[in-house]
């Protein structure tokens, strides 16, 4: 197929890389059988190829590999926030285990301490903490008036000590007999005073009085 040495030598590169077609390969081999000059030429190229393959490969020195990782890491974390985050992480990570241990120990000790020093339960009833509470009837004296089904409504004024200061009939028949009965009922009744922010104070309470008779 190939006739001259110049022509055949153009295919040596392909021959070295095993990229020749079958026909070309046969021609080259046939030519090499009788042409010593081309054979020597090919041997030289093969020797150079072998030398190139045998060239020692440069390796990245360990210090360069490390500095490169650091350099690239700096470039990657160029963002100020991420830089700050990485610095915080680096600063806090060594403290993480001691700090966690400290907090856990503190919680355990606090729990134990609280278990031993329980506050004693009090028998004193709690003072109502509402802002204002009205006076309340603690004990009502017997009602001696009989006015049928009609109720008597009375506005009673109670001082801070729980004593009745006075009263006024708001509805119902005002007769001397009823007034006497009301005097006995109201002045002999016991009241809890009104409170403001938990402290006793003067107040008024409206009482609706009616005698209920049970026939048995």
């Amino acid at each position: 197929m190939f006739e001259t040495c110049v022509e055949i030598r153009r295919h040596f590169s392909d021959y070295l890389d095993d990229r020749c077609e079958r026909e070309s390969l046969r021609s080259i081999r046939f030519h090499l059988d009788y042409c010593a000059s081309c054979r020597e030429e090919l041997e030289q190229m093969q020797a150079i190829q072998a030398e190139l393959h045998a060239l020692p490969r440069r390796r990245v020195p360990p210090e360069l590999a490390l500095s490169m990782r650091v350099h690239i890491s700096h470039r990657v974390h160029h963002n100020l926030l991420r830089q700050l985050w990485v610095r915080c992480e680096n600063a806090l990570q060594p403290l993480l285990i001691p700090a966690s241990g400290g907090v856990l120990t503190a919680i355990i000790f606090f729990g134990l301490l609280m278990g031993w020093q329980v506050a004693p339960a009090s028998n004193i009833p709690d003072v109502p903490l509402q802002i204002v509470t009205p006076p309340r009837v603690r004990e009502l004296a017997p009602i001696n008036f009989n006015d049928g089904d009609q109720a008597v409504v009375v506005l009673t004024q109670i001082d801070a000590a729980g004593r009745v200061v006075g009263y006024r009939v708001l509805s119902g028949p005002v007769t001397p007999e009823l007034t006497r009965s009301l005097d006995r009922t109201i002045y002999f009744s016991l009241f809890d005073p009104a409170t403001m922010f938990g402290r006793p104070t003067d107040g008024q309470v409206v009482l609706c009085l009616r005698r209920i008779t049970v026939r048995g």
Partner: protein
Amino acid sequence: MGVALEQALPAASHEATLIAELRAGSEEAFAYLLAVYQNPVFNLVAHIVEQGSDAADVLQEVFVKVFRSIRHFHGESTLKTWIYRIAIHEASNHRRSWLRRRLREALSLDEDAAVSEMALAKSPQQPETPYQALEQAERQELVRRALASLAQPYRTVVVLREIEGLAYEEIAQVLGVSEGTVKSRLLRGRELLKRKLGSCMRR
């Protein structure tokens, strides 16, 4: 992931996972990428830049660029081809600026020393005697100089084919040229090398 897998290039299925992790900004994935590719890329760059000591700077730039551009990588080529393309682009840019500087400045006398100080992996074929070791070292130095004296297009193709072992298709992808161009550059590069080294190889 780590040093144990340093030489193992990721398989196609793993490559997709690796790319996804890189896109997510995983530093572990990037550490793995570095472990796999830093030595081949360093070797490639060292053959392209004029001063061997500059290879470290170029290598850093290459991987910073890889990390930043990974989001724009859509898998048109393999990860290896893509990284090599970036490496060659960076190394060529660096070489051009170095040549411009060299025109203005005097050449440093320590240049060769810097190259020889670069860490070299042990050759697979160990010489048996000190004489053979010396002969091999001299021969390798001659080959390295001859390779360095080639014009950059030829040198790049020869390095990618003979030293990095890339296929013609991969070289074409890395350089963004046709396979025909790769073939002709390789032929020309080999011929030039033979012309420079022919007498030495004959001895």
